[in-house]
């Protein structure tokens, strides 16, 4: 058997062990269904926030202190304008209040709380007359005041024009052959974010796998039989298999759920069509997810191999995560201009390259840069694995008491 085939076999043996040891456990189900838990909490949080928003709007009023004709004209304008924003951003209910003297003083008294009834407060008051309107508002309610001002302007314009008949516009959706520039930008950002989210969520698992071998002292058996590079790669591939299983499961679920989306939302998603075409983009997205996982996983693996306790693992993982977030930020910034210097930089820098190139696939046609990029990223995976294995060999294997390389950096003397 050639050395390559022997190493491949050993790598796959270790990958298989790690995959089965992870997947065939009850804990894996918890991991697999973690997104449901996350989604549930997000929904609960979203409902809470929506309730809070609606509750605030329900407990506020906009008040008109105008002559009766003016108040009717403004109420009619409110009826026209209120349909524009969606329910969550709808302004508070508008009420007309009888004028009892100095409207400015009356408005101040209302805003000061004297006009509040049953816990309902006044956000803004339109007073005076339509030909010289004044809007008074409480601090923090500037948007409500601007809404009242817009109503006053609308009512005054309608009155000046002699109340022409208003035609009801027809809404017509037009199917476009080519995606819009905005749609491409959105799909580029979506690609960057998708890979970032998946790798952030999944690659962290790799960090503790070498600690398992060290704690169980299995590493000596592995190191005697298998080159450390094969051990590292095998562990990485094993956990990548777990990640692929996870993505395949949820990808299937989400793709089926997409059939139940409302028509407009489906059409909106179609606007996200990537520049290289849907089929090649799907393949490239999968490839960049793989390289992003392997790149980040190889670093996590190398870092985790140096640590001997969970506390050390967490301490050492944090800087890697911060770097990953930084790479995501840079790749996102470059996604809208894939030929700009920032984008080119992030496409070349190995840690940000998968994100940035996924964004490029969404924004620009042309496949050959992706072949080069994938090759470039795989070279760096090999480099990270080799460096990680060497650090492990020198820092941990040569002596049970030897300090890891990162500790020796800070050792005195």
């Amino acid at each position: 058997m050639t050395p390559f085939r022997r190493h491949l076999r050993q790598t796959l043996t270790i990958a298989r062990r790690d995959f089965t040891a992870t997947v065939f456990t009850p804990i894996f189900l918890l991991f697999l269904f973690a997104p449901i838990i996350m989604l549930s909490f997000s929904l609960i949080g979203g409902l809470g926030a929506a309730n809070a928003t609606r509750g605030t709007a329900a407990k506020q009023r906009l008040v008109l202190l105008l002559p009766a004709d003016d108040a009717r004209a403004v109420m009619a304008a409110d009826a026209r304008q209120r349909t524009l924003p969606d329910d969550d951003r709808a302004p508070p209910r508008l009420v007309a209040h009888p004028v009892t003297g100095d409207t400015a003083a009356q408005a101040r008294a209302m805003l000061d709380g004297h006009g509040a009834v049953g816990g309902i407060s006044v956000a803004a008051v339109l007073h005076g007359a339509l030909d010289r309107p004044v809007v008074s508002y409480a601090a923090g309610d500037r948007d409500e005041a601007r809404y009242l001002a817009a109503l006053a302007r609308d009512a005054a314009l309608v009155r000046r024009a002699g109340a022409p008949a208003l035609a009801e516009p027809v809404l017509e959706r037009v199917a476009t052959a080519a995606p819009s520039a905005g749609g491409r930008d959105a799909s580029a950002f979506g690609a960057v974010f998708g890979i970032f989210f998946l790798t952030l969520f999944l690659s962290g698992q790799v960090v503790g796998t070498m600690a398992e071998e060290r704690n169980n002292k299995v590493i000596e058996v592995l190191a005697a039989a298998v080159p450390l590079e094969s051990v590292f790669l095998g562990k990485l591939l094993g956990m990548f298999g777990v990640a692929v299983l996870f993505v395949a499961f949820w990808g299937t679920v989400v793709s089926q759920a997409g059939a139940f989306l409302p028509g407009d939302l489906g059409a909106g998603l179609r606007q996200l069509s990537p520049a290289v075409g849907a089929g090649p983009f799907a393949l490239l997205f999968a490839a960049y997810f793989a390289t992003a996982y392997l790149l980040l996983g190889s670093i996590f693996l190398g870092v985790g191999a140096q640590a001997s306790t969970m506390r050390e693992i967490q301490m050492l993982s944090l800087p890697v995560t911060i770097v990953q977030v930084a790479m995501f930020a840079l790749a996102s910034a470059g996604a809208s201009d894939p030929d700009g210097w920032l984008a080119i930089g992030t496409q070349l820098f190995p840690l940000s390259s998968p994100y940035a190139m996924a964004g490029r696939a969404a924004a620009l046609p042309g496949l050959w840069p992706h072949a080069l990029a994938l090759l470039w990223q795989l070279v760096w995976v090999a480099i990270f694995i080799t460096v990680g294995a060497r650090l492990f060999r020198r820092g941990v294997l040569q002596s049970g008491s030897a300090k890891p390389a990162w500790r020796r950096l800070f050792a005195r003397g």
Partner: protein
Amino acid sequence: MSSHPSAVVADGLVKRFGDRRVVDGVDLVVPRGAIYGVLGPNGAGKTTTLRMLLGIIEPDEGERILLGARHPRDAGDRVGYLPEERGLYPAMKAREAIAFMGALRGLDWATGRARAAEMLEAAGLGHAVDEKIRKLSKGMAQLVQLLGSVVHRPDLIVLDEPFSGLDPVNQERLEALILAERDRGATILFSTHVMAHAQRLCDRLAVIAGGRRRFEGTVDEARGLLPPQVRYVPHHTDAALADLLPGDATRDGDSWRFQLPAEGIEGLLTRLIAAGYGIAGLAIERPGLHEAFVRIVGEAAAASGPATVTERAA
């Protein structure tokens, strides 16, 4: 590659950890088909030597040949190894653990599983085939790991302190297993600091102390380093008896021990009888490996000073 006459050759192996030369020029030649012991006190450099031979760590100086291969990895599938620090995945079943270790060395999983069941049965662990490692006792887990290191029927088996942690029954099982593997044609290289096992098993042995090889030869040659010991029991003992006995004589209860004089013991016995001490008991004993080991290691310590490792300026 495999036609090399020796299973293992180590030539001037050196390993430094920082400024310490933990292994300081060790030479070993292990004949094929032999049971070879590497003996030495704690911290002598035995484990580091074995790890260098197996390629787990690289020597700073020197060369090694394993089953004819200049790099140990090239002979990896024909080597079995039981490390000093035992390690298995606790969640794995015994059968799977053995098959996994075989798979690392090139044995296919199905064959590994089948052999594992047979070997566990033969080792008296048939009931534990599908038990998880975490449910086994320490000794049973150790036997499982040992079986895992030989499941692929290697040509060379390296065992680092294989008897430590085993009860007498399992020690006997292990000795039987080592002899069976030798009969199969395998070469066995093991380290220990328990002389009884080495004396019973080894065809040849090396004593390492202070990172250096201090002796190499057969068990008989090691025992031959010391002259025979005389154990003499007189009818009675008084102060004058010590003057008649050799200068190295030491009292041990009713008996006295001393080295067999170079000129023989007949003259001494004649004088003792004439002085009225008589002979209540007399034995001439060959020193065991234990005594030879203590002497070799003691001489090494005396030569190296109080430390058991050789230290040099960096």
